[in-house]
């Protein structure tokens, strides 16, 4: 008995406030929910891979109304691929964010853990980094630069 999509909770927001995992998880937990997969991204103070460097803080900005529409689209794509997903939360924090601070969250809930709930969360963060219009500028002891993604959305995305 699959709950209808009609009243399944989908949360998406761009916020300047702290990301509260407890609160978001509670909001996407239904009576039928038994499992949640949550991804969070944090600001790294020290990066070792690719171009090793230190970060003092990141400055995030978003094209807010479009970003929220695209987060909704990411959630819709998740539901299309994993119809058993019950609740979805997609949150991007913006502003000046320091190392160790959670900046983004994708959470998916389902009745059981073997339903693709991990893959759904993974898909969600990958898609967010492709199509949701958010950018970050790195500020380090030696200067600042915009981080640029490498994905070009295709027509219809």
């Amino acid at each position, binding site marked *: 008995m699959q709950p209808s999509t009609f009243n399944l909770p989908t949360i998406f927001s761009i916020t300047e406030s702290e990301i509260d995992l407890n609160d978001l998880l509670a909001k996407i937990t239904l009576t039928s929910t038994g499992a949640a997969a949550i991804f969070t991204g944090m600001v790294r103070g020290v990066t070792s891979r690719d171009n090793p460097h230190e970060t003092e803080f990141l400055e995030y*900005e978003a*094209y807010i*109304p479009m970003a929220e529409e695209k987060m909704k689209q990411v959630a819709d794509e998740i539901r299309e691929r994993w119809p058993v997903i019950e609740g979805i939360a997609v949150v991007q924090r913006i502003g000046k964010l320091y190392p160790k601070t959670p900046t983004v969250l994708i959470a998916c809930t389902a009745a059981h853990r073997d339903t693709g709930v991990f893959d759904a969360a993974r898909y969600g963060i990958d898609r967010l*980094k492709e199509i*949701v*219009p958010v*950018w970050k500028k790195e500020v380090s002891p030696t200067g600042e630069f915009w981080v*640029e*993604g490498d994905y070009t959305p295709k027509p219809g995305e």
Partner: protein
Amino acid sequence: MNHIKLLFFATIRDRAGTKSLEIDIPVDLTILGLKEKLSTDYPNLKDSMKSVLITINREYAFDDAVVPSNAEVALFPPVSGG
């Protein structure tokens, strides 16, 4: 002429020196035509036009799309959120 609103983000905004701009464009101007017009009118933006992403009314738009009147057109580099 059609009146449109341009929004710039991240590196593109830095180069444009402004967050937004209202301009008039010929009827039936395409995204490709808009890029050419911006390269001419704002030389600082010329280099950015190769890899820029463009949206019309918050949907990704491509070279042959026609820009409608009163459109909200945003220009920005590939996204880097998360």
